[in-house]
């Protein structure tokens, strides 16, 4: 019994090693699998730097106490909310016209006088008299000219400007302090003090959060395309019939093929991870390494199973590579690889529950970024279940294709 099992394992390994060798000797297949994840990682990386910091021109026509104060707030918030260019009115409008800035903010000459007409609240002022509010005290106006080319873009600028203006009147509307520290918001005209509490001990910067899931896409792309191309090539060249007639159990043959697909993924992902760890791009806690390994392995098995189905169903390497690229891209995007799932509308958010890559990406993020493995167990149950289904379905489809 042991001898038979050992022989079966050896045969499985031989077939898998042969597949890996074949894949390594096909540089274009390797390129086809690597290009989409590399391009998406690059896209995510560059977008992180370029979005959300719109260029704004500030025209300061008044130079009193309040004008200088609000101009100082603009300068203090540049880099976080927008990039700021100081200019005179005519230059600013030219910059707006040539799309070098997205908005022009003018602090008008009467700004200081207008602010002075509406005094700030006093600490001991208890207001019951609504006539104060409706006394016609005109607030000072910042004049904003906005290139509102689309809703999202314009909304971002409006919000950033509103944030700056709010800081003028109520710098402490948000206080991330402990409950025991009483607010200093007696002067806050908004009359609310929002105390934020974060649910996680650390916050991951967006570059890592957005780029790291490309590792999942890399495994998917290499695993799906590698296995699919190996299967398709067997059918194209007619070697599938030889395999079907070989004096080896079909379970061993199919297991060898799927193991080959998994190994192909690992051949790519292991050096990539090593390089990322060496350069400091990732630094998983030592205790999380088994979890990280499990996520990657389970994803690779899923990819091999899916690739087997694809390769045995479609005819021709070109079709296989195209279909694999499309499927992997959908799985990646719907799994939250390029977005934060929390942002998605409810119906789409619910849909991601049926996308196995969402569990792989979540598991990967948990094991790389967060001290605890919160939700890792359920993620792995779904992912391993999917891997088991993919292996069984892939095995059956491949075996049938060989017999045709």
């Amino acid at each position: 019994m042991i001898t038979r099992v050992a022989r079966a394992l050896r045969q499985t390994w031989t077939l898998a090693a042969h597949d890996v060798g074949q894949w390594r000797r096909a540089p274009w297949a390797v390129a086809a699998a690597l290009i989409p994840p590399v391009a998406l990682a690059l896209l995510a990386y560059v977008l992180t730097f370029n979005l959300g910091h719109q260029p704004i021109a500030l025209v300061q026509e008044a130079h009193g106490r309040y004008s200088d104060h609000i101009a100082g707030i603009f300068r203090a918030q540049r880099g976080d909310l927008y990039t700021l260019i100081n200019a005179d009115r005519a230059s600013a409008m030219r910059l707006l016209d040539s799309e070098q800035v997205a908005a022009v903010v003018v602090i008008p000459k009467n700004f200081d006088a207008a602010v002075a007409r509406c005094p700030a609240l006093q600490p001991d002022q208890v207001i019951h008299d609504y006539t104060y509010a409706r006394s016609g005290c005109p607030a000072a106006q910042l004049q904003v000219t906005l290139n509102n080319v689309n809703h999202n873009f314009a909304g971002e600028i409006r919000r950033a400007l509103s944030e700056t203006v709010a800081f003028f009147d109520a710098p402490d509307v948000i206080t991330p302090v402990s409950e025991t520290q009483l607010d200093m918001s007696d002067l806050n005209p908004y009359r609310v003090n929002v105390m934020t509490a974060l649910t996680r001990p650390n916050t991951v910067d967006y570059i890592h959060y957005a780029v790291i899931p490309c590792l999942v896409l890399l495994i998917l792309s290499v695993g799906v395309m590698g296995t699919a191309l190996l299967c398709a090539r067997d059918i194209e060249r007619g070697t599938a019939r030889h395999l079907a007639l070989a004096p080896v159990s079909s379970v061993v043959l199919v297991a060898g093929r799927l193991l080959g697909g998994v190994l192909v993924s690992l051949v790519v992902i292991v050096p990539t991870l090593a390089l990322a760890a060496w350069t400091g791009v990732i630094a998983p806690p030592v205790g999380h390494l088994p979890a990280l390994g499990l996520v990657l392995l389970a994803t690779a098995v899923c990819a091999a199973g899916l690739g087997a189905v694809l390769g045995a169903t479609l005819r021709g390497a070109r079709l296989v590579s195209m279909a694999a690229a499309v499927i992997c891209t959908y799985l990646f995007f719907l799994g939250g690889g390029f977005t934060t799932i929390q942002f998605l509308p409810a119906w789409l958010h619910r849909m991601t529950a049926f996308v196995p890559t969402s569990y792989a990406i979540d598991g990967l993020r948990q094991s790389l970024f967060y001290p605890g493995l919160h939700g890792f167990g359920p993620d792995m149950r779904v992912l391993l279940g999917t891997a088991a289904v993919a292996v069984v379905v892939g095995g059956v489809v491949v075996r049938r294709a060989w017999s045709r």
Partner: protein
Amino acid sequence: MTPTLTALGGGFRAEFQQLRRSRLLVVLTIAEAVTFLMLVSIFGLTGSHVPTAVVDRDGGKLARQWAQVMSATYQTYGVRYMDASSAEKALNRGDVAAVLYIPDGFSQHMAHHSMIRIHFRVDNVNADLTNEVELGIPPAARAFAVANHFPGIRVVSAETDLVPHEVGFIPYLVVSALALAAFVVAGTLAASAVAREFETGTLAYLKLSPAHPLIPLAGRLLATGAVSAAAVSVSALLVVVGYGVEPVHPAATAVGLLLCVVIFSCIGAGIGTVVQRALPLSALIFGLALTFYLDSGSLEPARFYGNRLWVIGHTSPAYYAVGILQYGVHGLRVTPETIPVSFAALICWALLAAGAAWLGLRRAVVT
């Protein structure tokens, strides 16, 4: 003249038959193009309305108004009313990104203009989300105070918009994506047609042809171009019907898309000549399309990315194409260049790409 036309027509017919026989290839190519539209739509959906639970322990009119203002201010929050335990569960499951607890007595405090503290729990899953959620609060508080004429508000902003009818984010994105969809479809089909000639070794027969060997290849590229134009029309129709976007200048839109098909077919032919293998082409073109996406001004006018990326953007035809399409569909001006200049640039690109493809193919075929 007649042998040339015969060779051109022969190439066209041969490629057309080839494409008819590989319908799945055409379907998958169109699927790739539609994938681009879907991807940018998903990306567009994530730009706003962060799901946020509001636990209203006050129940008063002003508390409800606060939540409504929060929901309406710059599309930051997608507000969902919940009780405390459901909100906590939703936060832990990742169904909401934050929970705002409006305390008991909120309405009374606001009516008397006295201070009150509001608790806000945020799932700081990443810096971007945390930032987004936290940044929305001061504008919401300000909007609430302004709406209720609270005293002590000393500064407001008076806005003048350059565009009278603001375009939604997704309609904006899908129009840009049309140019890139054209690249995916036309580039893949043209590159595949050329690469197949190399793979199957039929170039040797073309050399023996009485006409110039590139003429039948040009015929093949005309066929892929025609199919690509049809496929891009399907994508454009999807944008019109599915997204409800109606072109303001249909002629400019159509000409812009047609020029895209021509340019990208030529670029595809060039890629096919260089790679000479069909297998990696679709992945390569998909990857290149993502790179074009970066600096073509697909999300917002490219110049706002900064001067360096804007200058790089000029080296890509997608930059001019997006400028023309945004003008054609939405009537927007998203590049500092005027529309005639963008058209001239695209035509130059078409000539340049055709010349480069011709030279590349001639070098590969004739020599």
